[in-house]
C-alpha cells in the first residue's frame, strides 16, 4: 500500500519509528511486509522512495519474539538445549552445537573423537540442508519455481538422515552437553554415502537451471553490492561476508569440534553482489559434502559421550539392573549438573554466519543468562546499505541473498 507522505499523521509515523518531513512531497513511503511472501517470515521493511529508487530502508523486527533467552534461564542446562532448535529452525544441529560447546567450555570437557566426528557430520548435513532451503526460497522469490522442488528433493534426503538418527526431522536436540544423545543407527553411514554420491549430479541440475539463466543473472548480478569494509563495520559474517571477498570462516580461524582435521577450502566472491553470494553458498555445499565424505571414511570407533555420569545420562539398558544408574538418571533429569561460576562464549560458523552462545553461569543448575549471537540479526543491519539507491524489486533479491531466518532474529 502506497501512502502519500502529505496525508500522514506525523505523530503516528514517529510512533512507528518513521521520521519523515510532512512537507517533503518528493518521497513516498511504502510498507513491505510483515506478510510479504519474500520476507521469509514476518519481517517488515519500510521503504522511503524517490520515484522508484529507494532512499531509505528501515527494518522492523520482533513479530515472532517469544522470549526464548528468558525461557532458557528457567530450565536446566540439559533441558535448555531444546530451546536452541527453535531459534534458527533451519540449522538446528548447529544451534545445538553452539549452545553445547559453550556449556562444555564452562564445564571444561570435550567429547571423545567419535562424538566430535559425528557432530561435524551432522553439522555439515545441516549446513547443506539450510543452504538448500535458502536456494529454494531465494529462487522462489525471484520467480524460479522449479528450483524450489529440485532443492527440496535433496533436502528431504538430509532430513531423512536426521530423522533416522534422532527420530525427528527439524528439531532434533541431538547434540547435547557431553556428546550426543545417541550413536548412528545401522545403515546410517551407507545412507549418508548414498546421498554424497548422488549430490553432485543434483547440484549440476540446479546450477544448470540458474547459472546461465539470463533472468536470474539480470536480477542478481550487480545487485545489492556491499564492500568488504562495510560488511565488517556492520558486523556481517558468514557467506554474505565471504561474497564480498573476505575469506573468513570460523571453521578455519578458530577451529572447534576438530574441524582442523578436515580438508576443505573457503570459497569467496569477487563482485560483492547477490550473484556472488549465490556462488559462494553453492560452492560451500560442495565443500560440506567433502567434509561429510571425510567423516564417513575416517569415522573413529569408540564412545560418543564423555565418561561422566554427572553430565551424560546412563544408557537405558543399565537402568534395569544398576541402582547407581537409576540414581544418576534421576538426579540428572531432575537437578542436572552445576557448571562452575564463569562465562563462556564459543563462536561457530553457522550457515548464516557467526553464531555463539554467551552463557553466564552462577554455579547453579540453570544458565543465569544465555544469549545467542544471532547472525541473521547482525546481517540484516546491512539491508539498508545494500538496498539504498536501488529499486524495490531488488529488495526481494537482497533479502533472499542475506539468508535470514526470523526465528533467530527475534528469538
Amino acid at each position: 500500500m502506497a501512502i502519500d507522505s502529505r496525508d500522514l499523521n506525523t505523530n503516528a509515523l514517529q510512533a512507528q519509528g518513521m521520521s519523515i518531513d510532512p512537507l517533503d512531497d518528493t518521497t513516498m513511503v511504502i510498507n513491505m511486509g510483515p506478510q510479504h511472501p519474500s520476507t521469509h517470515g514476518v519481517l517488515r521493511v519500510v521503504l522511503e522512495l524517490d520515484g522508484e529508487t529507494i532512499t531509505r530502508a528501515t527494518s522492523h523486527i520482533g513479530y515472532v519474539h517469544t522470549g526464548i533467552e528468558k525461557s532458557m534461564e528457567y530450565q536446566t542446562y540439559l533441558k535448555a538445549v531444546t530451546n536452541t532448535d527453535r531459534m534458527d529452525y533451519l540449522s538446528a544441529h548447529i544451534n545445538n552445537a553452539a549452545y553445547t560447546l559453550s556449556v562444555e567450555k564452562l564445564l571444561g570437557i570435550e567429547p571423545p573423537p567419535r562424538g566430535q566426528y559425528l557432530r561435524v557430520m551432522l553439522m555439515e548435513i545441516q549446513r547443506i540442508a539450510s543452504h538448500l532451503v535458502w536456494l529454494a526460497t531465494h529462487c522462489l522469490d525471484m520467480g524460479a519455481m522449479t528450483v524450489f522442488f529440485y532443492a527440496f528433493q535433496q533436502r528431504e534426503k538430509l532430513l531423512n538422515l536426521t530423522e533416522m538418527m534422532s527420530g525427528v526431522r527439524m528439531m532434533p536436540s541431538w547434540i547435547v552437553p557431553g556428546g550426543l544423545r545417541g550413536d548412528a543407527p545401522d545403515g546410517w553411514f551407507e545412507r549418508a554415502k548414498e546421498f554424497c554420491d548422488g549430490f553432485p549430479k543434483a547440484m549440476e541440475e540446479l546450477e544448470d537451471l540458474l547459472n546461465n539463466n539470463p533472468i536470474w543473472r539480470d536480477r542478481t548480478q550487480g545487485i545489492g553490492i556491499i564492500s568488504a569494509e562495510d560488511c565488517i563495520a556492520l558486523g556481517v559474517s558468514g557467506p554474505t561476508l565471504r561474497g564480498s571477498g573476505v575469506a573468513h570462516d570460523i571453521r578455519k580461524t578458530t577451529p572447534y569440534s576438530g574441524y582442523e582435521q578436515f580438508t576443505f577450502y573457503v570459497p569467496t566472491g569477487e563482485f560483492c553482489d547477490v550473484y556472488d553470494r549465490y556462488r559462494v553458498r553453492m560452492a560451500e555445499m560442495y565443500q560440506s559434502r567433502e567434509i561429510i565424505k571425510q567423516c564417513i571414511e575416517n569415522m573413529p570407533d569408540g564412545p560418543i559421550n564423555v565418561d561422566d555420569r554427572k553430565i551424560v545420562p546412563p544408557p537405558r539398558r543399565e537402568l534395569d539392573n544398576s541402582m547407581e544408574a537409576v540414581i544418576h538418571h534421576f538426579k540428572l533429569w531432575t537437578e542436572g549438573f552445576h557448571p562452575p561460576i564463569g562465562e563462556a562464549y564459543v563462536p561457530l560458523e553457522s550457515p548464516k554466519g557467526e553464531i555463539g552462545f554467551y552463557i553466564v553461569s552462577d554455579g547453579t543448575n540453570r544458565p543465569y543468562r544465555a544469549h545467542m549471537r544471532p547472525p541473521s540479526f547482525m546481517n540484516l543491519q546491512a539491508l539498508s546499505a545494500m538496498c539504498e539507491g536501488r529499486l524495490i524489486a531488488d529488495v526481494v533479491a537482497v533479502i533472499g541473498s542475506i539468508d535470514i531466518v526470523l526465528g533467530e532474529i527475534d528469538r
Partner: protein
Amino acid sequence: MSSAEETNADAQPQERIEVTKIRERYPDALIDIDLFRGDTRILVKREFIVDICRLFKTDSDLQYNFFSECLGVDYLDAREGYRFEVVYNLYSLPYDKNGVRYGKNHRIFLKVPVPEEDPTVPTVTEVYPAAEWPEREIYDMFGVSFSGHPDLRRILMPDDWVGHPQRKDYPLGGERVQFPGGKLGPSVGEVPVQHPGASWYGKTGDTQGEKHSR
C-alpha cells in the same frame, strides 16, 4: 625489572596486550580482569568505553575491527554497587586486502557496570556501526539506555510495551495476552481484557464485531 617481579610474572599467566594498553592509556578505567578458560574479560568504567573501543579499533597491535555483539546481564543484588553489566564482544577479524593483512584473530570481552539508579552507557555506534541493533536490544530488554545512540527505540517488543522483559524481576509468563492496536490494551493502561480475542472487535471498527460479541 627485579628478579622477584620476574618470577612473579612467570607464575601468573601472560597478561593480554589489551590489558597493558588500557593500563598505559586509561589507567583510571580498569576495574577488574577476569580470566576463565582462556578468555579475558576486562571490566572497565563506562565513561571510558568509547575511548577504549576506539583505541582497540585503531591500535595497529590490536585491530579489533569486528563488533561481534553486545549483551546485557542483570545481576540484581549479586554485584557490589551496580546491577547491570553490558558485555562487548570484540573480534579482530583477519583478512587480506590488496596484499595487506588486516586483523589478528583475537577475541576480547569488555564489560561495563551499570548502576540501577542511572542506567546509561555511552553508545559505541560511532566507533562500531554494528552496535546499533544490539544496543537497541539491550535497551529493550533491560532498560539500559545508550546516550548518543542515533535511533534508540524498542526493537523486539512492541513500541508501547511497559517494562523490560529480560530483567530478573520481570516474571516469566503470566502476563495477559495483549492486542494493543496502538491505543488500548493492558500494556498501555489497565484495561481489563476478558479473553484473548475480546479486544479484537472495536479495533478494526467493523460492525460484524458487535453482532458476535456478547
